[in-house]
């Protein structure tokens, strides 16, 4: 398969990473090489094989729906770039 410059730009947009024209060009070259490597994998016939997401094939552990953590908002917000009255500040989303 061949990647296009538009693919790179589209994916960067989806990943919320600003990308310059030069960076997009450079990534196109690098990523095309990596996808050539990845292509080897696509050629294998895997019909009927169950995907493996975890080596122990475990099931999700469930617990009672009760409060287990204490309120540490002040502590956790102490590392935030910008807060006000206990809220995280971001640029206005709705005019």
């Amino acid at each position, binding site marked *: 398969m061949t990647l296009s410059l538009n*693919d*790179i730009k589209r*994916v*960067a947009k*989806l*990943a*919320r*990473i*600003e*990308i310059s024209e030069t960076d997009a060009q450079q*990534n196109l070259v*690098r*990523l095309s*090489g*990596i*996808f050539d*490597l*990845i*292509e*080897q*994998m*696509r050629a*294998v016939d*895997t019909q009927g*094989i*169950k*995907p*493996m*997401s*975890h*080596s*122990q094939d*475990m099931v*999700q*552990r469930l*617990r009672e729906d009760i409060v287990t953590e204490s309120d*540490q908002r002040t*502590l*956790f917000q*102490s*590392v*935030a*770039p*910008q807060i006000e009255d206990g809220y*995280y500040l*971001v*640029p206005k*989303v709705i005019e």
Partner: protein
Amino acid sequence: MLNASLRQLSLLLSEKKISSTELTSEFLSRIKALNPDLNAFITIDEEKSLDQANVADKMIAAGRSTPLTGIPIAQKDIFCARGWLTTCGSKMLSNFVSPYDATVVERFDQAGMVNLGKTNMDEFAMGSSNETSYYGPVKNPWDRLAVPGGSSGGSACAVAARLAPAATGSDTGGSIRQPAALCGISGIKPTYGLVSRYGMIAFASSLDQGGPMAKSAEDLALLLNTMVGFDERDSTSLQRAEENYTQDLEKPVNGLRIGLPKEFFAEGMSSDVSNVIEAALAEYRKLGATFVEVSLPNSKLAVPVYYVLAPAEASSNLSRFDGVRYGYRTAQYSSLEDLYTKTRAEGFGEEVKRRILIGTYVLSHGYYDAYYLQAQKLRRLIAEDFRKAFEQCDLIMGPTTPTVAFNIGEKCDDPIQMYLSDIYTSTASLAGLPGMSIPAGFGSKNRPVGLHIIGNYFREAQMLNVAHRYQQVTNWHELTPPETSN
């Protein structure tokens, strides 16, 4: 003192021949002297370390010590430690002072170990050379022109240069074993699910696993006894009966069946590495082990499968870094979207961005089945290969890496060559199997070579036993880099 085993240090401490404060001070002054050149640590905080040493000394005085109380340990900067700068090697977290402890850190704290500092690493653990760190490359203490490997390169360097008696690492595709091999130390990645991932900054969650790095298998066993354990806070943590990893260390290994995958002993492995591995196997023959050829036919697919699964999971995990709740935020922005995209463009390095782009692509609409699902199916085939191999043998051996450490800068422009240095380690990672690397000699340019031991699930005690017996008849693990032995 610098070359003492953890057991020896433990004895000196409990017999009060040395205090934890003295021991910690000695390592801190060594770090001060050698770290400016080696760059193994991102953060050191003497006051914090010495406070902990003081607490440890009180524990010992009160007779409440564990075998690890008072011994310093360096923490890979992927583990959150309360009150410590925790950067994960990234500009994105260059201002992040963690408000909480990772379970691994908490467990070592409770055992009375002293946090000696946070070690350098590839950014978000994405790299095999420690060159992607925002904090600059780490040097290999055996040859300062060479990389230490990665991503746990700082931890491997710190132990090899005797800046720390032990360190933590994390391994997604080889990040404990590859740097352990290239720096001539011992390191083990346990079975996936044994060590809690809570507070260990996520890269690829279905593969990430913490583990110890130290001079010998015996040291690793002691560390694992504290590091392993069920954790409610990690959804993939395994609930198992407690195990004593030191109990089998002295068992004889005669009759042990060692599997040699023919695919690992084929083209790709350089001749200097091959010679060292052959010599290591000859030692095992002398110890009474037998050899059987096994086959892992799908292992050639491990690297491509890994480079679909790991970036896919990384692209999801790293979406949390948005400049809103913690970490770096761009200075100038006009909208929320602008804040996100600029923060992420400036906060992430090139390799991290590259992997996020790959991951986003393979998970995007119309491509999921062709890439992610296909990779997960192949992952099962790779795990099946191992299952069949373990019907014929007790454990598997081979080289940890195809070559000795390469030079700093040598592979920076060629990501694929870099990725291929994880070829042997990523195969075991995909299967979720435990793997370890122990020093086995020296290859070209007198750079270390590691012997890779892959065990069946939960066979860590057996692997440590097999490694320990080898270390009783060889002294590779006791050798120190010439320039740092002052």
